[in-house]
């Protein structure tokens, strides 16, 4: 376990409240089960540019439907940078990157009137930094024990969190981090039909945490597409809400138009027979397509740096 810096901030979040806390590069935010069995929703923003925020779909596509110890939590695809790495995570903490945050209407339509919910809790918390309810984004869900079946139906199982369990996230950029006990838990297994407090601590950076950040930066930044607003063709945040067409705008699509080049490849009779077997097996529509797919697959498997086997 890395040595963290001294404790900088500690808050106890009673149900159902949240707190936006600056967590700077190299610092660690620890989210603790004060009593256990409480689902936690987590949002985060670049402290210096709120348009860069935690990208749930980006994190999901780079890791899995669930994240685990050592996984990187990425910002949205327009920026595509590491925001956190999971340093420690209790084995009872089932993570979830599929479920949308709960919101008031879900409960009202079930007859419960105005009920606690993560959309409103997170919005109330980030308001301290002049962010609006529209700025709340999909949550990194912690201690959210979800499953799905073979046809994609999604459901929640009993919360497995225990008192004292925690998750440690190391910030790799300066962030505004927001944790909130989920407000839906008293009406389901999300938090086992109760609402409970959580504790949040922030530890200062240390030489060890900063060294880990630098390692992550070395391996995961500097790629095409990891853009800053200065690189955006349109980079001003719209001050008004109405959308109006800009008649002088000319889009610049990547590598557009797509062009093809044909190459004549000689194969022996035996090689043709093998290729045709793959056509028959459905790898491609014809021999040319099978060869193209084969070459690209070979390259992906044998030459792409750091590619996971799939």
């Amino acid at each position, binding site marked *: 376990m890395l040595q963290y810096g001294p404790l900088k901030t500690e808050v106890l979040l009673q149900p159902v409240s949240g707190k936006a806390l600056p967590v700077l590069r190299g610092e660690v935010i620890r989210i603790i089960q004060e009593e256990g069995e409480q689902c936690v929703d987590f949002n985060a923003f670049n402290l210096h540019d709120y348009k860069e925020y935690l990208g749930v779909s980006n994190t999901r596509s780079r890791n899995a439907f669930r994240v685990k110890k050592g996984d990187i939590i990425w910002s949205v695809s327009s920026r595509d940078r590491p925001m956190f790495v999971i340093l420690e995570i209790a084995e009872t903490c089932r993570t979830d990157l599929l479920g949308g945050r709960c919101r008031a209407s879900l409960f009202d339509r079930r007859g419960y009137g105005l009920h606690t919910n993560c959309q409103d809790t997170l919005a109330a918390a980030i308001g301290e930094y002049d962010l609006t309810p529209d700025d709340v984004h999909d949550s990194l869900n912690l201690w959210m024990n979800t499953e799905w079946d073979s046809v994609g139906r999604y459901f929640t199982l009993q919360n497995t969190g225990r008192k004292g369990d925690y998750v440690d996230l190391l910030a790799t950029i300066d962030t505004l981090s927001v944790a909130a006990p989920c407000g839906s838990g008293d009406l389901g297994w999300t938090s086992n039909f109760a609402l409970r407090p959580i504790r949040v601590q922030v530890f200062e950076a240390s030489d060890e945490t900063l060294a880990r950040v630098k390692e992550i930066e070395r391996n995961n930044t500097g790629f095409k597409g990891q853009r800053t607003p200065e690189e955006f063709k349109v980079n001003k945040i719209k001050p008004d809400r109405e959308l109006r067409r800009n008649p002088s705008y000319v889009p610049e699509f990547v590598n557009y138009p797509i*062009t093809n080049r044909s190459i004549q490849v*000689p*194969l*022996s*009779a035996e090689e*043709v027979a093998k290729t045709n077997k793959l056509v028959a097996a459905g790898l491609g529509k014809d021999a*040319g397509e099978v060869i193209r797919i*084969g070459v690209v697959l070979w390259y992906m498997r044998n030459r792409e740096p750091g590619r996971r086997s799939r």
Partner: protein
Amino acid sequence: MADSPSADGAEIIEVTFNQQQYVIIEKLKAEGHFGRADEEIIRHIFLEFLRQEGM
């Protein structure tokens, strides 16, 4: 797409790559040990692919 097969069953297969896929051929060309011509590199890599597929 294949042209007319020769008497021994060998064929010339037309393989199409777009400019993004062709980057792969350029990278393999730069490695130097899969051949120099595009068709040579593609054939070599495809045979490697077949071998890895157990064919």
